[in-house]
Each structure stands twice: as structure tokens, then as C-alpha cells.
């Protein structure tokens, strides 16, 4: 354990290779650490940091700090400096190919490439909380404070809005093939069909069953048609979303108050964080049946 920031740490994430940890905090700093706890690189901006994301290749990390998207290279070299956006950045994510960087901020989404100014901006009167781009790079979606999802087609900026969730939307997940998008709000999961012309006018598949707030959601890397979720009631569920009938295929009940979830990249096993600071591993049966 080491002192990484002056004040609260907002996010800390392993690099994809597991070689580094990036952290950002209320001190407005973004830092990269090696496994011995030595600082490899550092950047600072005015304001609080809100989110950070590693590029898929693990060579670079980006963070939202105040109104700025700040980038750091893991080799300690200087990264691109972006201009400030009109309002505080709330969330950041990379495209799968690492070429584009998406920043959700109050009042819209900005897309950056290699220059200081955004290459595209999608203004929208709302407050994004999380942002996710489809792996084919065609869509970018935000989950918002006003209990909605907002979707942009990256090519032309055309928009879709999904509303009517019971709470703000903090969890969104893209399927590996970019054809499906899942989101969770409170104890409800919805899956949207992005095949063909997209989900315009369509109804999502609803998945109910958790009895409290869902805090982790993700498609299974080893089984791309399966979706996993965990909630604060200690339940962990595995779903195969189907339009009619029961989507639930397996569930576990534990005594933990879960706070987060990630899938193992190689097994049908999830790793969950709990509100009491534990890390719990939950395995599901292979070849899940009905």
C-alpha cells in the first residue's frame, strides 16, 4: 500500500498487461505506478478527477480532470494535450482500436484523436455519467443522470434517446460484436438490439430478478451471448437474453454487499468487489443449461 494522492483517490485501474496501475484523485492528478509503487508518469490539471481509462494496448491512459481530458503515456513520454471542454468531464473511454477517445461532459460528448481540439462534438442538454463506445466504433452511448441512455451514431451524429429507467444509468455494456447493448438502472437490466438499422423504435429485452441496486454488469468474454450482473443484495446472475421467456440461466446468492464486478478473460468466473473491501470470486457452470 502506498500514498498515491493528496486526498481521495477517485479511480485506480490496472493496465491491460497488469504491468502498471493508473490512479487519479481529487487533487487533480493522474499518475501511473509500477508494481513496486514507484511513480512512472504524472499529469495535473485544475479540478477533480472523475474517471480514467487505459487504451486497449496499455500504452496510454486518459483521465477526465476538471474540464480537461488529460493523457499520459506509460513510457513517461509526453502525451497529447487537449483543450478544455465547456464543462466538467464526467467519464472517458477509448475506442477498441485506440484511435479515438470519448469524453462525456455536462452538455454532451467530445471525441478526440491526435490533436488538441476535439475532432467531433455531440452537444446535448444533459449530464452523462458513463460513456461506452461499441467495439466497431459505430456507436457511442452515455448513461445519464436524468435516467436515460443517449446514443449517437459516430459517423453522422444522429441521436437516439432511451428514457423511462427508474434511476440514473450508471452501468452500460456492449457485446463483443457491437450488436447488443445492455444497461442497468436500479434492479432492472435492459438489452437493446443494435443489429441492422439500430434500436430506433424497438423495445428492449427486460431482465428482472435482482432485489436491489445492480452494481456490476458485463458480457462474458468467453461466452459472448451471455451477460452477468451482481447487485447489492448479494445476488450474482447469469443471463442469456431472449425476447420471450426467461433470460435467467444461473444465479448465486451470497451474503456480500457487492460494489463492482469484472469477468475473468479466460473463464466463466466473475470477480466482485464488496462494500466491506473484500474481493470475491464466483464461478458459474460451464455449458450452462436452462
Amino acid at each position: 500500500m502506498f500514498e498515491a494522492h493528496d486526498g481521495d483517490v477517485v479511480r485506480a485501474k490496472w493496465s491491460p498487461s497488469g504491468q502498471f496501475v493508473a490512479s487519479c484523485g481529487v487533487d487533480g492528478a493522474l499518475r501511473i505506478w509500477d508494481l513496486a509503487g514507484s511513480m512512472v508518469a504524472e499529469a495535473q490539471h485544475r479540478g477533480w478527477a472523475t474517471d480514467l481509462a487505459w487504451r486497449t494496448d496499455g500504452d496510454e491512459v486518459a483521465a477526465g480532470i476538471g474540464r480537461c481530458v488529460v493523457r499520459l503515456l506509460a513510457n513517461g513520454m509526453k502525451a497529447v494535450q487537449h483543450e478544455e471542454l465547456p464543462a466538467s468531464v464526467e467519464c472517458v473511454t477509448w475506442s477498441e482500436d485506440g484511435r479515438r477517445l470519448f469524453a462525456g461532459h455536462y452538455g454532451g460528448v467530445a471525441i478526440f484523436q491526435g490533436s488538441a481540439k476535439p475532432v467531433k462534438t455531440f452537444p446535448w442538454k444533459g449530464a452523462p455519467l458513463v460513456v461506452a463506445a461499441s467495439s466497431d466504433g459505430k456507436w457511442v452511448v452515455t448513461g445519464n443522470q436524468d435516467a436515460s441512455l443517449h446514443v449517437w451514431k459516430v459517423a453522422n451524429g444522429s441521436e437516439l434517446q432511451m428514457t423511462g429507467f427508474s434511476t440514473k444509468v450508471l452501468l452500460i455494456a456492449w457485446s463483443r460484436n457491437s450488436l447488443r447493448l445492455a444497461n442497468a438502472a436500479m434492479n432492472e437490466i435492459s438489452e437493446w438490439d443494435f443489429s441492422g438499422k439500430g434500436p430506433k423504435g424497438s423495445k428492449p429485452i427486460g431482465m428482472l430478478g435482482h432485489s436491489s441496486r445492480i452494481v456490476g454488469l458485463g458480457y462474458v468474454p468467453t461466452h459472448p451471448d451471455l451477460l452477468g450482473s451482481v447487485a447489492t443484495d448479494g445476488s450474482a446472475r447469469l443471463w442469456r437474453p431472449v425476447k420471450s421467456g426467461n433470460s435467467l440461466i444461473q444465479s448465486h446468492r451470497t451474503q456480500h454487499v457487492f460494489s463492482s464486478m469484472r469477468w475473468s478473460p479466460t473463464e466463466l468466473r466473475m470477480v466482485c468487489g464488496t462494500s466491506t473491501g473484500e474481493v470475491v470470486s464466483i464461478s458459474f457452470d460451464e455449458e450452462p443449461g436452462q
Partner: protein
Amino acid sequence: MSTSDSKVPVTVVTGFLGSGKTTLVNYILSENHGKRIAVIENEFGEVGVDDALIIDAEEEIFEMNNGCICCTVRGDLIRILGTLMKRRDRFDYILVETTGLADPAPVAQTFFVDDEIRSQLRLDAIVTVVDAKHLSMHLFEEKADGVENEALEQIAFADRILLNKTDLASEEELVEVEGHLRSINASASVVRTHMSKVDLDWVLNVGAFDLQRVLEVEPTFLDDSEHVHDQSIVSVGIEEAGQVDVEKINDWLGWLLGEKGVDIFRMKGILNVFGSDNRFVFQGVHMLFDGQPDRAWGEKEDRVNKMIFIGRNLDRDEITQRFRKCLVR
């Protein structure tokens, strides 16, 4: 039933430019009171205070897409409060200072619409600082159509008003200003201060948004005749004996929120519901309404319906007449 004790109370300090709002915040921070207070400011204060937790905010207001046209909230506050609550062992109170020109509604509404905020924090009171000497000038300043008079709105939203800079005004002026304050907001308590020096228990942990303490301050209901000045924001008080029909009163509240919600800044009330031995208490900010059955009426207590609505262009007769139709005859 009260869960308020486990929640961190948040006091919102508003006040027009030059009223002494920052002086109040600095006084609260520097006074040796043993209370641990986190302060969220809109501008960095000039005075550095050791050990105090001071956070700089940006006024990021956005509209909730929830069918409520006046429901704006402060996104930056949601973010800051959310992060603060991860380390709640460091403070017991939170103070939010708004800018002089701020409309208090988005700040207040933030505490009603976000689940995480609601579950951990409670809006305790809105404290407004006014300048005794210059208030009248701000109040009756001519504004173009559609332009808000923020000084008026800040008074309308207040639970507590500091009538500050009393050393600069004569007793006559103070009495006149107090009259204005009462006619705008009959339910706020007013205290005269110099250099914003006030008993901290009067501004912290007041419980003004606590349903069980609704109307703890007896509103002074003024008659129309006492309205000396032509002002757009007034308090409309209703005090009527009798029992209300629960369905009719629901319709009445629905009409009030739907038709007048944009114009009503604050409302508080106690109802005597037909068929119930318990008081029904409610309060609200614009269209956001919070109501529940409360304790039983006392043996010797007068079962009287008491309500106060503070807002713009409120027609006292219309509201009262419609209310009377809800009474069980």
C-alpha cells in the same frame, strides 16, 4: 420514524452580492465551535482556513428529463457530494455556498431527485443573507419581462434569513425591511446580524426540510391589505378548521403542483384528513412534493389545516376557494 440522524445535514447559504454571505461562511469556518464542516463554494474564498475542507464547485445546472418542466439540478453538486460521502468520517455538516446571482431551486432540487444523495444526505435548511441597507433597492429593481429577480427568489426559498449589516440601517429601515421579508416569506425566521455573526445552531442542523418539523415556525399570515408594495412574490397562508376529504385533497394538490408548480418556490403544510387521527404533513420545492402521515393529533390540539405557499403570481382567493371545496361538510 426518522432516519434523518444518520444522514449528513446540508445547509445551503444564499444571498445577494455584497450581503455578507461569504462573511457568514468565513465566520462559520473560523469560529471555534468544534463542529467539522465541509464547505462547497462557488468561488475560492479569500480567507484560507486551516484544516477546513473547502471544495470549489462549478455551477453545472441541467434539466431532469422527468416530465417536470422546472426540475433543474446541480450536476456538479451530485458529483462532489457523492465523492465527499466516501469519506464521511471527516465531517459532520456540509455547507453549500451559492453565487450571489444563483436561483436556489436547482440546489434544493438536487437533494430530492438523486437517490444516492437522498440516501446519505439531507437538505437541512436554506439560509439567506440579506443586506439591511440595500435590500429594498434590489427587491424593487425593475427587471425586463422574463428576467428573474434573484434577490426576491432567494428570500422566497429561505428557511432562515440573516438581516445583516444592521449597523448601516436605522431602526425604521430595519422594521420596514422586516415587513418586506415577512410579506414575501411568512414562514422563514429572521434574525438581525452584524458582520453575519449568528449562533451556529441557528443555521446548522435546523431540520427545516424535516417533515416532522414542518411549520415549526408559526407562519405569520398576512392579509392582503398589509401588502404595502407591489411585488410579484408573496406568501399565501391557509388556515382552516375542518377535515379534508383525502381524494379531493389529492386532486387539489395535483392541480396545485401541475398548474402552479413552476410558480411555487416552497410549500409546507399540515392537514387534518377525514378518517385519520394522524396529522398529514407535506412540503415541496416547485413540483417536487414530499408528504406523509405524521404523529397523532394531541388530545387538546386544535385540528386545523395549516399551509403556506411561497411563490410568484399566486392567487390567494383561487387557492383558498379550491381548498375549501376539499373540506368534508
